[in-house]
């Protein structure tokens, strides 16, 4: 009979160690969501943070000035719900827009729909920036 002890050995443990939770691993994504680019700025990634902030904020503001529509929480059409999720990624920009009651999207010209898309994509890009800020905080990315 073959060596029976080898068959009883446990499979090797995964080599990935759990990331220790620090203040930065929680604060960086939260602040990054609330203020686009700020998650990088508080980790002293000045240029990256500044570029992310400029790009996302500019895209969101362009969407508003192009008479884009800001979605509200809804339980209706699936595309409306996805639009709300995209807008929600804007974080503080979305909260500010809703507070000031902007973004009603009175479509008066053909390219106004681009404004709605700009608003959604700005939020989605901010979700990516949030994930990147988290990766920097846990040391996965320099």
């Amino acid at each position: 009979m073959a060596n029976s002890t080898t068959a009883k050995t446990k499979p090797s443990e995964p080599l990935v160690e759990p990331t220790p939770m620090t203040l930065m691993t929680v604060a960086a994504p939260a602040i990054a969501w609330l203020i686009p680019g700020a998650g990088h700025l508080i980790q002293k990634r000045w240029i990256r943070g500044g570029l992310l902030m400029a790009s996302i904020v500019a895209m969101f503001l362009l969407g508003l000035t192009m008479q884009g529509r800001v979605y509200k929480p809804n339980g209706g059409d699936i595309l409306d719900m996805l639009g709300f999720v995209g807008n929600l990624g804007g974080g503080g920009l979305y909260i500010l827009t809703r507070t000031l009651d902007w973004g009603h999207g009175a479509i008066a010209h053909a390219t106004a729909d681009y404004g709605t898309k700009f608003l959604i994509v700005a939020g989605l890009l901010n979700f990516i920036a949030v994930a990147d800020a988290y990766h920097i905080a846990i040391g996965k990315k320099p």
Partner: protein
Amino acid sequence: MTIQLSHFSSAILFAMFASVVFGITQRTTPREMIRYGLYCFAMFTGGVLVAGWAMWLIRR
């Protein structure tokens, strides 16, 4: 205040902002970030031009 952009200028601005975010978030070194950002911008812009000419051909 409202802005009326053309289809092309909207697409270029969209490509620029998205490329900046993609470049920064999807690569690790500054050199790779710039290269990937430029690559994304070229793909976005090229895609718009190709799609535009394809629609022009279909319309003919």
